[in-house]
């Protein structure tokens, strides 16, 4: 059997043992999102100190792709600046898991891979707009989130 382009060791491992799995009580940023087709359903929780992400967790249920991508995203953003994270692109996440090809090969499964990034972008947007009253800082995060897939 040739190596599977999607279900690599790394993805299976992450789906079995997701990183940063759990919940933060009263987080600064909280966003729920789901994929109706797959039934992926996640809650993303983020705490910040100033502009720095100090704590990230997620919980929920999903397919292996969704669980792996969400795990990796939480690892990538922990300790980073919100400004940096705001500019995250699809490929930044997908390339970590070798899943860039999904953009072309599977318009269905790409949603599983990018659900967490979408939740994150929306989450940061409403953090800036609703909590900080800073629409300028929010930029066009909302449009970006909506156009991910």
């Amino acid at each position, binding site marked *: *059997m040739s190596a*599977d382009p*999607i*279900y690599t060791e790394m993805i*299976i491992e992450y789906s*079995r043992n997701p990183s940063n799995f759990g919940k933060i009580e009263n987080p600064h940023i909280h966003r729920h999102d789901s994929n109706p*087709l*797959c*039934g992926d359903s996640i809650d993303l929780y983020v705490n910040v100190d100033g502009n720095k992400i100090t704590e990230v967790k997620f919980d929920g*249920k*999903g*397919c*292996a*792709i969704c669980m792996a991508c969400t795990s990796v995203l939480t690892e990538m953003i922990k300790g980073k600046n919100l400004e940096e994270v705001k500019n995250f692109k699809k490929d930044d996440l997908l390339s970590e898991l070798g899943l860039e090809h999904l953009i072309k090969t*599977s318009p269905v*499964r790409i949603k*599983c891979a990018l659900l967490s990034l979408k939740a994150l972008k929306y989450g940061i947007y409403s953090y800036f707009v609703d909590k900080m009253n800073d629409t300028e800082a929010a930029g066009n995060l909302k449009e970006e989130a909506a156009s991910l897939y």
Partner: protein
Amino acid sequence: MQSTTYSLDSIRSDFPVLERKVRDNKPLVYLDNAATTQKPIQVIDAITDYYKNHNSNIHRAVHALAEESTEAFEATRGKVAKFLNVADTREIIFVKGTTEAINLVAYAWGRDNVQKGDIVVTTEYEHHSNIVPWQLLTQETGAELKYIDIDENGELMLEQLDEYLATGKVKLVAVSHVSNVLGTITDVKEIIKKCKNADAKILIDGAQAVPHMKVDIGNLGCDFYAFSAHKMLGPTGVGVLWARKEILEKMRPFLGGGDMIREVHKYETTWNDLPYKFEAGTPNVADVICFTAAIDYLTKIGMDNVRNHEIELTKYALEKMSKVKGIVIYGPKDPEKQGGVISFNFKDVHPHDVATIVDKNGVAIRSGHHCAQVLMEKLEVPATNRASFYIYNTKQEVDVLIDSLDQVAKVFKL
């Protein structure tokens, strides 16, 4: 007379799509027949022929094409009646599918016959199309919606129906003939008997039955029966509601418009005769007419042969699947008690991951809630994988499925 030999090769050669290669040149293994079946060349040709040579509106004009189309449309009605052993063609109403058929009953019959305090009964293994219309009706009227639960074999616990019927309040029992997820064949004869004794009407969702086994509506004794053409080799956008003439005559129309009227005045209208009273507007003329080719095709094979072929495949698949590591199979797990439908999951593996791995080998199965979320809740899973067979599937194709499932077990280290 039915033919006793079942020529799988010649059947397969009638389905152009089965020659397709998918995903890096793998032969297509189409096992999503419960969603919709493929179409034989006879049906595809009939559609082209209709638009090339006969296209016109029906029931309206006297020119040659209109007469041809009207005649062909009514001929299909006759074919359907004969196929289901229905004596009176006026009881055959063309709609766009099972969903519309059930909604028609909920709307046109339900709103005049179900009141506050009444009970409508459905089951845990219904498709959303046999749940949501009853929710709408009972919410609107103040009636109550009750469910017949399923046991661990995926069969209905009919003693619950006895309890409901004993209240004397049940107006309607709506149940599917074959479950689209578990494959369970409902004991409709028994349910009909119980309903008759309690003076309750019975509607049967036959979307997964009519395509796969002989259904004799003439002798069944139910009140309403619904199914879709696209799940039995026919075109999309065509379905049938059968109902007893006495009931249809008393019902008010569903949609108002052309064709369903006799005379329209400024403030009143008289209804057309059956079945036209329920066929407002220009129907799906082309696809209804081409449905004939699908019925002819199935009739030629013989429905008993269709059923036997599916029993054989289901038996073969159940045996092999039960040996796949980490698999959980739902439903009766008995080919005699189920249609050609098998639902399954792998422990800890999301159904969409299963479908993706299987799809790489060209195998089309369905993963999801199958429009049966009430059942998913009962099974305590978000979704299942489902393989469903039809006349053109082979044991070799089942083998490809099994190999793919073994790959799933391997990839996920089960």
